[in-house]
């Protein structure tokens, strides 16, 4: 077994996951999808979780910049088609994954693209629109209310949230069930350790 995720990454991933799920559930309540806590309570929780996530992001951005790990998330431009073909066909016929996870390249090209979309589009859209919603009264009536409106900003927030749900469904399915054994990646994300090639279970070439 080799350490593939640092302890910070494990902490960051799961804290972020918990915060995002909390934000998602309270956000759906604020959106009117269901009623449980009541709008006022749900809103307070949503805001606390949002500030916490922003704080966590600040640390994570700092960590990624100083360690150079941000490179893990830059799309490679190649290999996406091979990964997609693997998930569309090879995974059923028991083919080996076209890419091998290493310490310096933890993510396959499809993962890179998906995580990049999450980090560069979905998440910023959520927190920028969220901060605008929160601070509505301070920009309403200023030059910003020309291009922006509460409805438009809310539309962006909701769109990004729906995109996040799509991402989460696909991510949870792929990350938690498509390793070898099926829970390989989940285990790696929890313990930080993954099998070296051939160490755990034999793969068919």
């Amino acid at each position, binding site marked *: 077994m080799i350490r593939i995720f640092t302890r910070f990454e494990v902490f960051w991933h799961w804290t972020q996951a918990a915060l995002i799920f909390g934000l998602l559930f309270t956000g759906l309540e604020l959106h*009117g999808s269901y*009623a449980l806590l009541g709008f006022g309570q749900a809103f307070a*929780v949503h805001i606390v979780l949002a500030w916490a996530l922003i704080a966590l992001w600040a640390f994570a951005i700092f960590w990624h910049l100083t360690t150079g790990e941000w490179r893990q998330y830059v799309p490679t431009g190649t290999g996406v088609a091979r990964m997609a073909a693997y998930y569309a066909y090879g*995974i059923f016929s028991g083919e080996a994954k076209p890419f091998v996870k290493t310490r310096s390249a933890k993510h396959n090209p499809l993962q890179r693209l998906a995580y990049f979309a999450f980090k560069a589009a979905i998440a910023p859209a959520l927190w920028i629109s969220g901060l605008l919603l929160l601070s509505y*009264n301070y920009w309403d009536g200023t030059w910003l209310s020309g291009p922006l409106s*509460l409805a438009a900003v809310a539309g962006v927030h*909701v769109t990004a949230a729906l995109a996040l749900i*799509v991402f989460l469904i696909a991510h949870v399915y792929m990350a938690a069930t498509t390793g070898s054994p099926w829970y390989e990646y989940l285990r790696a994300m929890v313990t930080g350790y993954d099998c070296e090639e051939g160490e755990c*279970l034999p793969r068919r070439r």
Partner: protein
Amino acid sequence: MKRICWILSALLALSAGPALAAEAPAEPPIPGASNEEPVGSTADHSQFGVLEGPFETGQEVTQACLTCHTEAAEQVQSSIHWTWTYQQPATQQTLGKRYVVNNLCIGVAGNYQRCSSCHVGYGWDDSDFDFSAEERVDCLVCHDTTGEYVKLPTGAGHPPYEDTELHGKRFEAPDLAHVAQNVGETSRETCGSCHFEGGGGDAVKHGDLDSSLLDAPRSLDVHMSPEGGDFSCSDCHTFSGHIQRGSRYHVSMPDYEDSPLAAHPHDKPACVACHGGEPHEPGLHDKLNAHGDLIACQTCHVPEIARGGLSTKTRWDWSDAGRMGADGERIVERNEQGRPVYDTMKGSFAWREDYPPTYRWFNGEVSYTLVGDTIDPDTEVPLNRPLGGPDEAGSKIWPFKVIYGRQPYDAGNDHLVVPKLFGSEGEDAAYWRSYDWDRAIRAGMAEAQAIGQTDAGYSGDYGFVDTRMYWPVNHMVAPAEESVACGECHSPGGRMAGVAGVYVPGQDGHPLIERLGWAAVWLTLLAVLFHGGLRYYLYRYQRHGGGHSEAERGS
């Protein structure tokens, strides 16, 4: 600075461990509340020789009052309580009871004797009333402390001078000398004797002003309740020289960004005069104070109309009036609460209790449809309209009680009319004597011209038109914990549904985004289930039928 403060406080709260709700502050003392020991007057009116009486009439009492309070009558005579006239500065309309039309008893003209039982004067019984006669000012109706002074409903402003029975109700003649010797400050009782009885009875006109405020529980009115501030009306509607603050024709909406318990007494009765513009604890997000940019305090803090246990009138249909019983007598049908739902004299009514107000944008100015104005009888005519809109600076969303009506109009001229309803002995043109709308309108319009309400005449052709009227809701302010909960508006079909120009999170959405977004979510879920299901099926097939080893279950 404030903006930075709440962001900082939010971050501080985070670093100190998330606290989800700000701790409720202890109830602050209420400045100006009369729950302190009352300061006695420097004058004992029972010791004044001029008040020894006996008094035969109200005017005699007033003359006695004026011997000391030399300027009082002149002051009262410049007030709307006397003139029933108000020059609206923004719309330039001449308003006041003399000029406006409602959909209750419609108008004053020709109905003086009945309507003027709430005039702060004596003897306004025709269009020739002398508005300059000082002795005709009624001091006692506002300054009585005995509770014995009551004006006779049909007495043109006079109290009964001998015990009188009216519609089965007994009105005792007050001992005017006793009342005069016990005058004092105004009270909920004195103001309420007219303002709780608007529309002809308790709670009829205003859904937020009725006799339940005389001794209100704290939950009904946190200011007026003896368990709360124990306010009288004039604690907020302060008087100076007999002129009071606060007008529903021209609602003052001052704007402040300051702390609770800021003192802007010149802005009474606006809430901010005492509470400041940012009265809520900022907590983590300060959204409650932020709401104040767009909605009035009352919108949340007066959660329902008619919360005091008395229903209020929501519809008055005059077109039904005049139906007689089999015996040829007047019919009065009542609901379970004893409220009339049909009355031969007045038509049919609807009543409601404890219901959410109607919300409208409002900049404080109200525009009226007056008697001479052309109306479209095929539509529901707004007798008044709160002005303002979502894009207008200073406009806020306010709560209103809406009264719907169906009332006579001039079908030849397309005008509203004032019918003469009330008639003394011999005044057979009055609707309540002859049940003849044509005669009643002719007589009423002649009176309306006589008092200068309108130049419009009557074509001789009448019909009935649907109307609605807005009454701003300001009273029966609930304690904070009983104000409108967030979810009442921030939920599908919430209270702000139908209010234009405002996006309410939780209520409003983006249908196209929703449809596409949720379709994408469900498709993703289906794809994942299909993909996973197929993998699982193949794994079972390989294990049992395909002959591969268990070790390959990884795919």
